[in-house]
């Protein structure tokens, strides 16, 4: 029994039906982790992208290194690092929050590249026009660069969101009870892993198919206000 639901092991189908409510509770955790992690990745990635374009060489190079390092090392090890090392320095966070930070850090490396590509796709003439109108660097980013970049990068960002969603099961190893964690717990108690694991797989498949369709639609709706999206 878990979360007040009991499993029925009569047939695989009744088993599947009986544990579905439990897995759906896990799904909400999965979705929350992905949403929070992605929000963090969006903010952090933008900061990285802008710092990387800093006119101070040391700042730009350091940022480039940090981004490269984050991108070239596994999420799982980064997660372990945060989970075990932070408490040694007196920072004790709930497992869920640690997981969200790990997801956000790892994906900020990807999103910063997307931002960078988006910024570099803005024609030079736009920067020059902003200079000629005496806009500051900050005003140029705020009014000219970012508004033109955002519609262009939404589809790519959406794909990363889906990718992150599929990586959230990793959080189960630091005791976050998302879908996979719950499926494993059910398996431990019933000695029957395949049904719960298959269900988690199917739920993920449905989720990603829905998200991909959503992104596809978004892409069609997006071109607005005269921005050519290539």
């Amino acid at each position, binding site marked *: 029994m878990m979360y007040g639901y009991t499993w029925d092991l009569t047939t695989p189908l009744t088993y599947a039906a009986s544990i579905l409510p439990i897995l759906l509770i896990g799904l909400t955790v999965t979705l929350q982790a992905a949403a929070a992690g992605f929000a963090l990745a969006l903010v952090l990635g933008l900061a990285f992208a802008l710092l990387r374009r800093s*006119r101070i060489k040391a700042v730009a190079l350091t940022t480039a290194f940090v981004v490269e390092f984050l991108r070239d090392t596994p999420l799982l090890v980064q997660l372990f690092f945060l989970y075990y090392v932070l408490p040694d320095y007196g920072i004790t966070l709930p497992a869920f929050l640690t997981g969200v930070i790990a997801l956000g850090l790892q994906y900020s490396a990807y999103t910063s590249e997307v931002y960078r590509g988006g910024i570099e796709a803005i*024609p030079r*003439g*736009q920067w*020059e*026009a902003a*200079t*000629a*109108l*005496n*806009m*500051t*660097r900050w*005003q140029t980013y705020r*009014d*000219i660069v970012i*508004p*033109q970049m955002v519609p262009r990068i939404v589809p790519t960002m959406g794909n990363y969101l889906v990718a992150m969603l599929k990586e959230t099961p990793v959080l189960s190893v630091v005791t976050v009870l998302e879908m996979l964690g719950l499926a494993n717990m059910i398996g431990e108690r019933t000695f029957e892993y395949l049904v719960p694991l298959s269900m988690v797989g199917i739920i993920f498949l449905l989720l990603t198919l829905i998200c991909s369709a959503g992104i596809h639609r978004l892409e069609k709706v997006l071109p607005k*206000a*005269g*921005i*050519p999206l290539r």
Partner: protein
Amino acid sequence: MNKVLAQQPDAASAAAAPVIEFRGVTKRFGALTVLDDFNFSVAPGEKVTLIGPSGSGKSTVLRILMTLEPFQEGQLTLAGIPYHEPNGKGPFRASDRHLHQIRSHVGMVFQSFNLFPHMSVLRNVTEAPVAVLGLSRAEAECRAIDLLRMVGLADKKDQYPAQLSGGQQQRVAIARALAMRPRVLLFDEPTSALDPQLVGEVLGVIRNLASEHDLTMLLVTHEMRFAREVSDRVCFFDKGRIVEEGEPERIFTAPAEPRTREFLQSVLG
């Protein structure tokens, strides 16, 4: 219509002090010297056209003035303000604040218009006055509509650049530059990216601007007949130097230098 534009200092008092002055300016791109010990000055209210073969450095003069390009040697002043600061750092040898101050006197119209595609025509013209000059939106819109009327596009104010023809886009770009009330307006081949049938409407706007206002104008153009009409002075540019300059009538009818003659023959046929 005069109220739309900045008040210029009257000609008599300014005659002594040029508004633009290049003294021994040298500009290099790597090993390539684009401007070589360049000397040049423009009086307030003067309309000067730079002509010459492509790659001769004409556009670079404008881009340096707009602080889009740094230069390596010599001195440049605008309205008495030197571009380089005594202890200035970076390629421009000036602080952002100093560059900001210089730019407040200059406007530029680009060959490829460079309108902001994500903003309506009206927003293109009001954005900088609001963000940079600190005007209220109502005030900026009032100013923008006057300017759009002047370039004949007040009815297009809610459209986006992609919905306009090239000629209309360039007229909006002129209004956008004027909205900042510059003392000096730079035109970098404003009609080169246009289909031939659209060139006229843009030249018309510039012509009116030249004849009715005491704005200082510096033009780079390949439209020779137009240069002859609007300019007080024409400078023939070749290999980073001014080869010959003078009143348009004389340059176009009796050029003294053989190179000028050759060039004019090649472009006028």
